[in-house]
């Protein structure tokens, strides 16, 4: 009995912070819904091409002479076709990968830049810190969408050569970091004064060790939350860019499909199904982010 109790206690202990976070997360129905939606999108991104009957940006129906087939009529084209003959169902499945790629890769770039600049400007007092804060503020007020449109027009040659998504990822990443930098700066300022940072310093730890081992891990949870929300924002912005016709017409994304359907508004299915997917994915990431924010928030202890 005694030993089994001890074992139990040990098990409880090794059920670390991660388990606590998961327990709190699980109780939140909206967060679970978000996780399911994100899981659905990720599944599509990974396995979508296995289920897609036709390759992306191909015109299978055109060869059969049929154009703009409505959905649920011909089961070889369950969600209908575009007037150009593109199969909507295949296109949606295969766009998931591109959309997720844009969302995640751009976020990764933003987090890397934002975390670096935020922590550096929070930790270094004096001129360099103020300078970094100034740069952050300048980037914060830039009209990002307009700049993105401008850049994708300037780089139109590259875009047309199939680098379209990468260009969009880079632009989104490079302009998307100020919010992250703001949050990490604030957290760093708070932590810098914390006694355990002083104590670590007093025990002979170097500056880089304090930064990477003690400050960065301690600001990870807000960064995870804002990164999740940024993924949603990036997917949405990409959709906007492509919808406005500034994307790469040879790469299938949901936004690109909206653009396809724009000139054929009476063929509602062309825009409707990708639109639903955009809603699902951004809603999913937003709910997931909110759920994580609640689960990771130490102030809401059970």
């Amino acid at each position, binding site marked *: 009995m005694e030993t089994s109790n001890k074992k139990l206690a*040990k098990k409880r*202990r*090794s059920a*670390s*912070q991660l388990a606590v976070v998961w327990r709190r997360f699980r109780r939140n129905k909206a967060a679970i819904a978000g996780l399911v939606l994100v899981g659905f999108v990720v599944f599509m991104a990974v396995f979508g091409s296995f289920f897609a009957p036709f390759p992306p940006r191909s015109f299978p129906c055109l060869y059969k002479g049929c154009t703009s087939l409505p959905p649920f009529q011909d089961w070889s084209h369950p969600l209908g076709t575009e007037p150009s003959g593109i199969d909507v169902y295949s296109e949606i499945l295969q766009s998931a990968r591109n959309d997720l790629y844009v969302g995640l890769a751009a976020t990764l770039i933003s987090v890397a830049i934002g975390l670096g600049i935020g922590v550096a400007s929070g930790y270094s*007092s*004096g001129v360099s810190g103020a300078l970094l804060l100034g740069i952050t503020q300048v980037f914060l007020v830039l009209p990002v969408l307009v700049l993105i449109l401008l850049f994708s027009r300037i780089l139109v040659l590259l875009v047309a050569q199939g680098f379209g998504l990468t260009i969009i990822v880079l632009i989104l990443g490079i302009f998307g970091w100020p919010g992250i930098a703001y949050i990490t700066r604030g957290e760093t300022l708070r932590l*810098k*004064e*914390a*006694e*355990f940072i*002083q*104590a*670590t*310093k*007093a*025990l*002979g*730890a*170097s500056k880089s*060790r304090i930064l990477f*081992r*003690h400050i960065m*891990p*301690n600001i990870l949870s807000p960064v995870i939350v804002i990164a999740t929300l940024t993924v949603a924002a990036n997917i949405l912005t990409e959709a906007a860019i492509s919808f406005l016709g500034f994307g790469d017409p040879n790469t299938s994304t949901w936004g690109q499909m909206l653009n396809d359907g724009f000139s054929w508004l009476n063929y509602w299915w062309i825009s409707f199904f990708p639109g639903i997917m955009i809603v699902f994915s951004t809603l999913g990431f937003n709910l997931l982010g909110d759920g994580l924010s609640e689960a990771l928030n130490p102030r809401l202890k059970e």
Partner: protein
Amino acid sequence: MGEEILRVENLKTYFFTEAGVVKAVDGVSFSVYEGEPLGIVGETGSGKTVTSLSIMRIVPPPGKIISGRIIYRGEDLLEKSEDEMRKIRGKKIAIVFQDPNSSLDPLFTVESQLNEVIMAHLKVTKQEARNRALELLKMVRIPDPEARLKAYPHELSGGMRQRVAIARALANEPDILIADEPTTNLDVTIQAQIIELLKELQSKLKMTLIMITHDMGLVAETTKRVVVLYAGSVAEIAPTNEIFKSMRHPYTAALLKAVPRIDRRKELKPIPGSIPNLIDPPSGCRFHPRCPYVIQRCIEEVPELEFTDQRAVACHRWKELSLKGE
């Protein structure tokens, strides 16, 4: 008394705030001898903590050490590079902070926090560090040390956390241990245990202990000599057993009157007035606005720290006054 191990000379540490320059430590001098438990006592804002942070050279901005010398084994710490200083912190001089609830990183286990200090200064394998960590936990009397190595700070009680903090400070057997109000944030019963532990470790390891506190009782119990700070400068230095009988500075006397004593049934007398504004401190002797023995000279002239036999006092009138604590 052992050899002089640390000497603080005319230390000035100012904080450059927007409201003005706060002279938190303004000309503090004292010596610490090897193996001795020394107390530094004073009210909140007297400069105790800033003095200890200055010794470690970890004064947070906007604070800055303006002048003075901190001689550790014949070398001035204020002239060392940051790299040299890092090798001294945690190895030669270590510090235990006030609040054990916030002086440990919440994200790491006890083991990794202890390993961090050990491996920062010694080239040892993980296994050796682990053994050392275990040994340290035993030394600070943590029950079931093997299991505690895996614990996170939030899984320990306040007293346990302070023991871990002490173990961490002692990891590399420092020459000098600074304990900055190590019991302030603990329950009374736990306070007694921590004090016992520090006393025991001090005598066992023959360690030089600098006990920073506002608690005269703690000073009496743990130290052999005491430095009394007031508003950023030294009021009096004396052997602990003498200071309770014959204090020379009126501030020391006032301080002792404000401490409850079980052997004397007397009313407590708070010190009138409050600690002065350190941006614009009083002229002359800084204690003069609150001192019952004030004369014109006290307002005009800053008293020098006068050394006589084992003691020192900064008061113009100490020879004519015969002060009593009770």
